[in-house]
């Protein structure tokens, strides 16, 4: 399992985390994972992921930040 790519967007001004995510997603291979750390619930990102065949899970961290793990959906 390759190391997940990480975007720590906690100290970035919106929409910089989303901009970086767009760049990473373009080269995310099946089986790869992108992890994002954010201070908000990125609903715009979720709708983009849904439309473009990515799956994701979000979990609230102890420091109040939001960890979003993204990968390509496996095609049936």
């Amino acid at each position: 399992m390759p190391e997940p790519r990480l975007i720590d967007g906690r100290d970035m001004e919106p929409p910089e985390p989303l901009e970086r995510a767009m760049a990473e997603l373009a080269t995310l291979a099946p089986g790869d994972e992108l992890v994002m750390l954010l201070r908000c619930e990125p609903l715009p990102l979720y709708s983009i992921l849904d439309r473009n065949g990515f799956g994701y899970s979000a979990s609230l961290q102890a420091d109040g930040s939001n960890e979003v793990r993204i990968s390509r959906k496996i095609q049936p």
Partner: protein
Amino acid sequence: MQPVLSFEQAPPISVPYRFFLTAPLFGAVAGLVLVLLGPDTFQSRWSPGALAMTHLIVVDFMLQVMCGSLLQFVAVVAGANIWRPRLVAHIVHPLITAGAIFLASAFLLEQQVLFLVAAAVFVTALGLFLTVMFIALLRTPARGMSIYVLRTAVFGLLVTVMLGATLALTLGLEEHLQSEWSLLALINVHVAWGLGGWALMLVIGVSYLVVPMFQLTPSYPPWLTRLLPAGLFVVLCLWSLQLFASDAASQKWQTAVGLAGAGLGAVYAATTLWLQSRRRRRQADPTLIYWRGAMLSLAAFALSWVVLETVPQLGGSPRAPLWLGVLVIPGLFLSVITGMLYKIMPFLNWLHLQQQGGTVTTSPNMKQMIPEGAMRGQMRLHFAALGLLLAAVLWPALALPAGLMFTASCLWLEWNLVGAARVYARFRDKIRAAAGTAVAEPR
């Protein structure tokens, strides 16, 4: 609670942009009024030029941007369904524009009938806007202080419009209608609800979300987020009691209410400046500097209010209200509005392009939407114009350069915003062309 932004409900980009792109032009017209009428404009708040300038700025600049932003913000932040936003914008935008022109003309030409026309136009436009906004804000599933404060701000606009229409009817039907209220009290209460209950309340509600999110500051203390709007609302209600009593005892009491309002403004300004000093990113972009300038203007307004109340020789000057007006209208509100426009338009550009292009098409970076140097140059001109306007209150001979500089800063803002809209249009066309090519190509 984490801030949540939703873009599923966002209205078409043309809805807010029509308001944004009109607003600075009327700021430029207001500056030209000062240039043409010269030093007489700043003799007192009652001069036709001062009244026309004020309404051109507060209605055709501030109200335009605030209505356009609210149509976007309520949908995005509250996830609220706005009833046919494109249709509402098509009706409200031209009517507000026309209403302010009628009102400014009424003051400048002293034509009573124009007051009546302006009142009818505003009641129609804002009646529709307020109805749509109230329904959206009451039906939204979202909760949180920002929503409560936005509801209070919309109520503040309702009170302002009702009092404004009463004033316009009083002025327009001078010989036929004698208001039971003193005209001065009616104006004082109208101004307080317009600037405090609508504009400042809206800035406070929006700042709870955008200051921590875009300026990377800590959040406002929860107790303060409740105290500020509640305190401001109580102050405005008490201030409105002057409509019913105008004897000496009540005037003393009103002084205390005014000081409490100035105190709340000072607390809000100081807290925002303190939060900004603790931001996690050290870079100071034009939006941050605009907000700082706005909060310093609000603090200066509060301090000036206290001084003018406690030193009667100064407070009694006919130019004292003009000094306060310049600090609060171009100083506080136009600074916040311009700073936010420099953040909102690139953000909306980027977002709408993303939605059209998905992850495949490369959209321009946020920072490429409006050149940083152009924003900083316009910002310097804005603050220089603010300084000159304040100086012109003290030395009216400076009215001409102050008016010219204010006009120039508004035109530069217009240029920057039109540039952002053109960037959007250019990339949207590219995305559409690429999509058309992809469909046309045989696989």
